[in-house]
C-alpha cells in the first residue's frame, strides 16, 4: 500500500506465497469444526455436544501444546528421530523465512499448528460416546507430543523418513496414518460402548454428516494446496488433485453402495468424500491428475471393505477413523511409490515410471508409521488408565455425555426448565443427573 509496508517485507519472503498461506491456514483451521459437525452427526443425539467438543478441545489443547513444545520437536533441526528445543515457546519463530520456503516462519508455524489440531481431533472418533472429557484433553495433549510431533518430524521436519527418501506431500504419515492407527489403539484400550453390538447405534443427523464432509473437502484445498508452502506448480497440482480424487472416490462409493444394498447412501457419500481427500493427501503434488483419479477410484475399495467389516468385530472404533484415515493414508503413501512421475513433480519417479526403489521408501513408511502410532498410543492410554478412569460409568453413558460431561443438551427444549436466580450468597452447585 505504501513504500514503508513494502520495505518491511524481509528478504526472501514472497508476498504471493505468504498471502496464499494465510488463507490456507484459515482453511485448515476450519476443518476441525467441520470434523466436529461430521462426527456429531454420526453419533446419537445425547452425545452431540460432547462429540463436537472433543474437536473444539483439540483446537485448544493441540494449539497450546504445539506452540509450547510440539512445533519445536517437529521442526527444529534435522535430527534423525526428533527435533530440538530451539523453538520451544516460539522463541526465534518470527518474520524471517522458514528454511526452504518464502513465507515467514511464524506463518509456517501457524499452518502446521492447524495440522496438529485436526489430527488430534481425528483420534476422538475412536472414543466418542464414552470417554471422559478431562482425560481426553490430557490424552491429546500428550499424544500431540509423543505421536504427532514425532511423526511430523520424521516426514516433514527432516527426520529419518524424509532423509531416507520417503515422500509425503501433506501428511499421509503424521496426520492420516498417525490418527488412524492411534484411533485403533484408543478404541482397544478405552473399550467398546456398553450398547455396542447389542443395540443399533445410528447416526442421529445425516445432514450434519454431509455438511461436515462438504466443509472438510473445502478446507482440504488449504490442507493439500498449502502443503507446498507456495503458489507454484506443486500447489496447483495438489489443489486440482484434491478436486479429482474425492470425485472419483464418490463415484466408486455410489457403485459399491448400489451393489451392496441397491441404494446410494448419503452417509456413504460423506464418508467417500473424506476417504478421497485422505487418499490424495500424501500423493498430492507427486502424481498426475490422471493417476489421482485412478487412486480415488481404486483406493476407495479397501476403505469400503473395512467400513463394512469393522462393525462385525468387537472393536468399537466408533467412527471408523482407521478405515477413512489410516487405511486411506496407507494406500495414498504406497500410491506415491507406484504413480509418482518426475515429469509432474520434479522430484522422483515411482514404480510405473521405472523407479522401484521409491516404492521401497514408501513401503517402509507404511510399515513403521502404523506400528509407532498404534504402539505409542496404546502405551500412553494404558499408562493414563493407571491414574484415572478413561471412560464414564455405565449409568452416565446411558444418560448421555452431553448432560453428564457438559451440563448442556444439543436439543434443549426449555420445557420444564426452571430458571435459577442466585440469591445473595447462595452458591449454585451443579449436580450430575
Amino acid at each position, binding site marked *: 500500500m505504501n513504500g514503508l509496508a513494502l520495505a518491511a517485507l524481509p528478504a526472501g519472503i514472497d508476498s504471493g506465497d505468504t498471502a496464499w498461506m494465510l488463507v490456507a491456514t484459515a482453511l485448515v483451521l476450519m476443518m476441525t469444526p467441520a470434523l466436529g459437525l461430521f462426527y456429531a452427526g454420526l453419533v446419537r443425539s445425547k452425545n452431540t455436544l460432547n462429540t463436537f467438543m472433543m474437536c473444539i478441545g483439540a483446537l485448544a489443547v493441540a494449539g497450546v501444546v504445539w506452540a509450547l513444545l510440539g512445533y519445536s520437536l517437529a521442526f527444529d533441526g534435522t535430527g534423525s528421530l526428533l527435533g530440538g528445543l530451539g523453538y520451544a515457546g516460539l522463541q526465534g519463530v518470527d518474520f524471517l523465512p522458514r528454511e526452504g520456503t518464502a513465507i515467514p516462519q511464524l506463518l509456517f508455524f501457524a499452518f502446521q499448528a492447524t495440522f496438529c489440531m485436526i489430527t488430534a481431533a481425528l483420534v476422538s472418533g475412536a472414543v466418542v460416546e464414552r470417554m471422559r472429557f478431562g482425560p481426553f484433553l490430557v490424552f491429546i495433549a500428550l499424544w500431540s507430543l509423543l505421536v504427532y510431533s514425532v511423526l511430523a518430524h520424521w516426514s516433514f521436519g527432516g527426520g529419518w523418513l524424509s532423509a531416507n527418501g520417503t515422500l509425503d506431500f501433506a501428511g499421509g504419515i503424521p496426520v492420516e496414518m498417525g490418527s488412524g492407527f492411534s484411533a485403533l489403539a484408543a478404541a482397544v484400550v478405552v473399550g467398546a460402548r456398553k450398547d455396542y453390538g447389542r*443395540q443399533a447405534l445410528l447416526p442421529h443427523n445425516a445432514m450434519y454428516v454431509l455438511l461436515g464432509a462438504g466443509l472438510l473437502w473445502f478446507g482440504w484445498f488449504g490442507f493439500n494446496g498449502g502443503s507446498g508452502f507456495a503458489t507454484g506448480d506443486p500447489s496447483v497440482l495438489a489443489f486440482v488433485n484434491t478436486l479429482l480424487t474425492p470425485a472419483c472416490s464418490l463415484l466408486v462409493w455410489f457403485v459399491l453402495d448400489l451393489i451392496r444394498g441397491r441404494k446410494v447412501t448419503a452417509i456413504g457419500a460423506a464418508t467417500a468424500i473424506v476417504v478421497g481427500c485422505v487418499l490424495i493427501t500424501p500423493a498430492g503434488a507427486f502424481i498426475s491428475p490422471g493417476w489421482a483419479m485412478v487412486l480415488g477410484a481404486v483406493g476407495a475399495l479397501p476403505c469400503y471393505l473395512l467400513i463394512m467389516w469393522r462393525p462385525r468385530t468387537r472393536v468399537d472404533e466408533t467412527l471408523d477413523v482407521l478405515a477413512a484415515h489410516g487405511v486411506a493414508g496407507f494406500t495414498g503413501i504406497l500410491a506415491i511409490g507406484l504413480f509418482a512421475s518426475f515429469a509432474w513433480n520434479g522430484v522422483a519417479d515411482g514404480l510405473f515410471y521405472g523407479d522401484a526403489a521409491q516404492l521401497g521408501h514408501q513401503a517402509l513408511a507404511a510399515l513403521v508409521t502404523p506400528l509407532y502410532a498404534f504402539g505409542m498410543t496404546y502405551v500412553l492410554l494404558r499408562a493414563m488408565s493407571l491414574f484415572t478412569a478413561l471412560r464414564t460409568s455405565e449409568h452416565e453413558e446411558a444418560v*448421555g455425555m452431553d448432560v453428564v460431561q457438559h*451440563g*448442556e443438551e444439543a436439543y434443549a427444549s426449555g420445557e*420444564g426448565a*426452571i430458571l*435459577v436466580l442466585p440469591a445473595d450468597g447462595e452458591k*449454585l452447585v*451443579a449436580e450430575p*443427573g
Partner: protein
Amino acid sequence: MKLVIGIVRPEKANDVLEALYRAEVRGVSMSRVQGHGGELDRVETYRGTTVKMGLSEKVRFEVAVSDDFVDPAIEALCEGGRTGEVGDGKIFVVPLERAVRIRTGESDKAAVTPVDGR
C-alpha cells in the same frame, strides 16, 4: 382386558422392548414424554443462564393385553426398566372398556391377541 402403561427411562427402552418380546407381548406402542418423579433436578448452564431441569425425558409404553398377559407385561416392564436408582419410572394398569382391531373389526380379546403377521 387391561391397558398397561409403563413410563421408563429412555436408555432402558430397548431393554423393555426385549423383555416384552421375550414375554410374548407383541402389541406395543411407545412415545417420548417428559416427566418428573422425584429424581434429583439436573442443573444446566447456557452462558449466563442457569436452569434446573425439572422434567426428564421418559419413554411411555402402552400395552393393551388380555387378563392373562397383565402380569407378564408388568414383569417385563419392571425387569427391562429397572436400574435401582430414583427415576426408574412407574407402571399404571387401567381397565379397558373396549378394543377393536381396525383391519378385521374384531373386538376385545380377539383384538388384543396378536396374530402372526404376513
